[in-house]
């Protein structure tokens, strides 16, 4: 069986989202870089994989997919049984619902509060040579604190977000949080002991350590 292909730079957050799931299920895969400097993401070849010209894209034989969360779910559904892993909990309606709720929370509440700090402090200065917009950072940190208040309450009751089991919902938080820890604001998490402990549990996972190795905090 040919390894599946993930298209995009390994250091990209949304590529990492897919890669960490591939690692969790022990699937064989190949990362095919897409050269943004050369506008490869807007080439006809890549647009045929992802009509929005973004990364990641994914190929498994005839199946070509885009949208990192959709790709990750495909990977988990395909390999979980043989890998003895259950990150979606689709056999239990209530557990699956909690995984879905916290996956949506990551996408629509956590990430919009946290990612601007990553973009302003790390990505824009490095890739566009623009200085950090402190106002955006400060507004985002205020939003993030309110979000982390809720996470702290949740993680005081359960080891993981969907319950007392690691799930897709937790893993979805890894890529952007990894980069957040490379910004000057990483210590924000110190004020949220259960959140910090949860993050450290995630960061200690072999899958997360392996993918993090390709995500340098200085670039």
């Amino acid at each position, binding site marked *: 069986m040919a390894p599946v292909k993930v298209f995009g730079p390994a250091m990209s957050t949304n590529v990492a989202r897919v890669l960490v799931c591939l690692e969790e299920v022990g699937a064989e895969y190949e990362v095919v870089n897409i050269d943004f400097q050369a506008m490869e993401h807007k080439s006809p070849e890549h647009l045929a994989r992802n*009509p*929005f010209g973004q990364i990641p894209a994914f190929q498994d034989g005839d*199946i070509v*997919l*885009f*949208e990192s*969360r*959709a790709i990750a*779910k*495909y990977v988990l*559904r395909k390999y979980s049984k043989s890998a003895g892993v259950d990150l979606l909990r689709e056999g239990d*309606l*209530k557990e*699956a*619902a909690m995984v*879905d*709720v916290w*996956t*949506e*929370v990551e*996408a*629509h*509440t956590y990430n919009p509060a946290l990612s601007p700090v990553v973009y302003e402090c790390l990505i824009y200065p490095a890739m566009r040579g623009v200085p950090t917009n402190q106002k955006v950072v400060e507004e985002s940190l205020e939003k993030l604190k309110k*979000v982390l208040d*809720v996470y702290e*309450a*949740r993680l005081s009751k359960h080891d993981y977000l969907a319950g007392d089991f690691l799930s897709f919902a937790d893993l979805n938080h890894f890529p952007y949080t990894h980069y957040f820890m490379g910004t000057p604001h990483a210590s924000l998490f110190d004020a949220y002991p259960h959140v910090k402990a949860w993050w450290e549990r995630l960061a200690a996972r072999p899958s997360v350590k392996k993918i993090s190795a390709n995500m340098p905090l200085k670039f």
Partner: protein
Amino acid sequence: MAPRKLYGMPLSPNVVRVAAALNEKGLDFEIVPVDLRTGAHKQPEFLALNPFGQIPALQDGDEVLYESRAINRYIATKYTEGPELLPTPSAKLEVWLEVESHHFYPHVSPLVFQLLIKPMLGGAADPVVVDKHAHELARVLDVYETHLAQNKYLAGDAFTLADLNHMSYLFCLSKTPKADLVASRPHVKAWWDDISARPAFQKTVAAIPFPPSA
């Protein structure tokens, strides 16, 4: 069993997203008003349902859920009557569920807020915000146009949750001066004409308390 309760404002497109799914499945429910204008969504009573203080929340028996897209997945999975909203194989369906969430929604939501909701609250649309999101939504809908030229519905031959999750915002967009974003794209228009004619959706919109001028 306790009736299903959908908490939120009957006009809110994220609430209507869930109402549309409940109606497709032929499920009885009541809308329990949570008036954002009075800050009801930040009161302890509602925070006990959704700690992030947003609408909708759904109470189904002793299950309480929030995040409209998660609620809709739950409805589609739990209830087997009516159309199969999450059929397998699901790879393409999952892609288009995410496209709604990350490409369509980020632009249609501010447009609907500026052009429909803000005026209802006594405010005026911000033309800079409107132009920016209309421009971006146009580019997104160009991708939909190409896709729907090859596919009757987003996931292929059949209506699924991927189509349904778009409907509340498509309906609101159709009530604004930017309705032409859909009307000017033949395949997107044909898709919208088809899905909005579904009886369950007709029932859903009949319950939306639009003011007479809209």
